[in-house]
């Protein structure tokens, strides 16, 4: 998926949460590659996405959604039009 652009709404939310410029939000970005993407930042991202798109993540899936592309895929699976 790394050849694709991240949809702008998702990109902007993650940029706000991770405190990085939107253009730096790439699909391959993950908890491994972004230094301040820790577990609390991850929870913030999840809550922000839930609030924005009106969905709820399964708490068991939350720890597994560790990259931008995984988050995007999960949102699409829940029928969110990104």
């Amino acid at each position, binding site marked *: 998926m790394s050849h694709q652009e991240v949809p702008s709404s998702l990109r902007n939310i993650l940029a706000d949460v991770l*405190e990085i410029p939107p253009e730096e939000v790439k699909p391959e970005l993950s908890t491994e590659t972004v230094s301040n993407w820790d577990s*609390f930042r991850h929870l913030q991202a999840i809550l922000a996405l839930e*609030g924005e798109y009106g969905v709820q993540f399964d708490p068991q899936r939350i720890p597994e959604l560790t990259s931008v592309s995984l988050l995007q895929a999960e949102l699409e699976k829940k029928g969110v039009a990104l």
Partner: protein
Amino acid sequence: MQSDSERLALRRQIKDAASSRDAGTAVRCARTLVATVNKPADVMFCASVFAGIAEFIQCQPGARTLKTYVVRSVTVEPILPFLTVEAVLSNYVLDLKVGGYGSYADELLNPQSALADFKPDLVLILLDLEEIAGRLPDLCADGRGVGVEEEVEECVGRMAKLLRGFRSGNSARVLLQGLVVPDLTSLGDVGNANLPHSLPSAVRQLNQKLAALCRTVSDCVFFDVDQLAARYGRAQWHDVRMFLASRLSVSANFFSSYSRGLVRAFSAMFRASRKVLCTDLDNTLWGGVLGEDGTDGIVTGNSFPGNCYLEYQKYLRQLSSRGILLAIVSKNNEADVRDAFRTRSADLALSLDNFVAVKIGWNDKSDSIQELAKELSLGLDSIVFVDDNPVECEAIRQQLPEVTVVEAPGLEPWKLAGVLSELPLFDTFAITDDDINRVNEYKAQAQRAELAGGASSRDEFLGSLGIVCTFQSALQAPLSRAVQLLAKTNQFNLTTRRHSAAKIEEFASTAGGQAVVVRVRDRFGDAGVVGLALACKQGESCIIDSLLLSCRVIGRGIETALLAHIGETALKDGAKRLTGEFIATPKNAPCANFYPEHGFVKRVQAEAADSDSVFYELDLIASPPMSPKWITLEGVESNEPSRSAVFSS
């Protein structure tokens, strides 16, 4: 709701303001963004921007930086950006540090703890039910309550030890968060409502006891999070999924509301409450425009929509009863307003007496508010201004930025009391006797200062009092009052003769005799019958036997008016001279020079040498005594029917 383009424009403005280090604009735009758009990402954006310009926010007028340590048993980290933003919007910059999950006792009590090292200004204690009273759910399971009360007491005792122990070694201010009353339990709604020891009732009890505990610890405020949860709906407030998965005790939808509640609660320990509420009248205190609709046309009273305004008036009355000063700032004719308060009093919950200051006129309201602040010796930052007119509101915001402006929802008057309650303007966590007494103190101060400040001379000052003297025959006023004045008056009493009622009647009924009382009122009230003069005519001279005045009203020219009244009557009776008599006593020095000061000439002593009396003469034809121009005279005709016969002695 803002459109997305407006939202993006606000974000851009915030960013631009931050890069030019304009903290004021950044905060203002953030306020609009957060108030109109409820997107968590925007709050995180603002928190990030604020963190970058914290040093400039700290320099904003009135801003306070608080080193804040969070003692907790729940997850707070995702809430911190919201707390940061809400704090900045209330002009606090929080330097936050969060403690460990289970270590609150050590953090609070150990002098070498991370908390102690941090040297906080503020400690937030955010513990959940499990931590504070973990045994309660099981003890309350059967609703009968074996051991429940003991458990509650034990929990409160444990918290008391924590708080007192902390206080003995640390002076940081403390916020203790209460518990959210559990909503759905195994007893069900019916059991919870009817059984003596359900979990909800035990937790309510615990909250009350924790609040009472906080009252006994200095600089400690209780934060009733249950009140917030109930306001927004307990079912929405608590997200079971996120609580069980991540120990988040508040649903993400309420991070902002929760943070605002926390800030509001601790703010009461750092900032004084506002002291004065200045209200507009037309379409604010009552409906309609007095100048156009007239006294009968203004809308107030028990039926809709007048009762909307009545609610607001009652709200103000309640504020006043706990020491908040009320003032009127209105563009109106003062006489119309006084008339409206008088004739519509049955439809109003407030009278003019409830206001410590009244600024009615056609001046700029900013001038009126400044005058008022000066008169009350209070800063502009302690003043709240309520007005329905957006132009007036904006004028005050621009000209007096320290004043808090509340725009009354003119078209939805039922909302005004609620709008005021939602603002933290009059928050306080303790009310003292001084607060309660403040209203009366300031009222007197404002009246004096208003007059002294406005008057450039004594005459102008006296003129502004609006003194009205009513002269009456002593027989028309209650005679007992005249006798009482003769018996009691010492300081301003020229002869101190303690005449009887019969003697007064004799003066009144003799041809050429006078027995006159003076009744005085001014704009602050009616002083009643305060002066008396007795005189009789002998040949061409009118001899003043007695002249006295209650010491409450000395020095306002009333004595001169009384003398002028006697002289005028004497002239009508054919007298050509006034003869005054003074008998010195140990107490009446204040009036020793009364006659010389009024142009009388001392008579060469012709009476018996042992008399204490000194006599003075005045030529009535050449120089009749004149009443001061600042006094309005009433009832000059001695045969006018009494209007104050009911005045009690």
